[in-house]
């Protein structure tokens, strides 16, 4: 009999309360990072809300499997990335999503060394989303991960299953593509 969805036993209640209290600290510390990743990766507020909830529920269920080999932040990112990629894959299976052509941005004159100027910060989120939507999932993910100062290149490489050198090279192109397209959203 599958007990996974059965109401917790009365004897489990104190343990559940302790686990929930501990987990609320995990949520407090990492929810912004996970929500931001899902928001900008999926490009939709309500989907990001659902995804963040689902990621933390999965993490709560698997907390006993957390070995501490990676940081909690990295472990949560791994769950979030898998979750988001599965969602995007299922949408792609149902509808054909427009694919981006990064080659266009890769060949645009480099502007990565010049500052990105912003006049209206209230529209900044929209401009950033528009820009990220044009990029490939891979570039988008790399840019979002490297923006988190808690992650090293090694950790990003482990999260995306690539070597550190490969991450560096792709990030260079991703930043260039971002800067070129961001200018066009003005």
């Amino acid at each position: 009999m599958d007990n996974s969805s059965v109401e917790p036993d009365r004897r489990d209640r104190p343990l559940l309360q302790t686990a929930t209290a501990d987990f609320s600290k995990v949520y407090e510390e990492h929810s912004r990072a996970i929500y931001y990743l899902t928001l900008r990766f999926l490009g939709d507020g309500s989907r990001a809300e659902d995804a963040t909830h689902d990621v933390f529920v999965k993490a709560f269920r698997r907390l006993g499997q957390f070995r501490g080999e990676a940081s909690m932040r990295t472990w949560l990112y791994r769950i979030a990335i898998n979750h988001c990629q599965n969602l995007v894959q299922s949408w792609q299976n149902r509808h054909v999503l427009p694919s981006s052509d990064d080659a266009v941005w890769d060949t645009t004159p480099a502007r990565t060394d010049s500052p990105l100027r912003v006049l209206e910060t209230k529209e900044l989120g929209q401009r950033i989303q528009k820009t990220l939507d044009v990029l490939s999932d891979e570039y988008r993910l790399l840019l979002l991960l490297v923006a988190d100062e808690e992650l090293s290149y090694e950790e990003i490489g482990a999260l995306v299953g690539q070597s550190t050198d490969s991450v560096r090279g792709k990030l260079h192109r991703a930043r260039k593509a971002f800067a070129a397209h961001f200018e066009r959203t003005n």
Partner: protein
Amino acid sequence: MKHQNEFSQKQEHIEEHRTQAGKAQEFSSSDELLRFDAAQTIVPPEIARRLQRSAAEVRPPAARSWWKNIFGG
């Protein structure tokens, strides 16, 4: 006199606000821009409420056995 002072203070505040609004903000890289964006992002409080309800429905996470930590499985 008091009203005049209040009026000029308000004017100054409006002018200051206008100046800030018209001032371009510069970000040296996409990393910096995204960090700024992330810091501005507010996590919807509804997620925490939903999580609390969900946590009450799931069984508490079982600790991984020490032999599984060593030998896997």
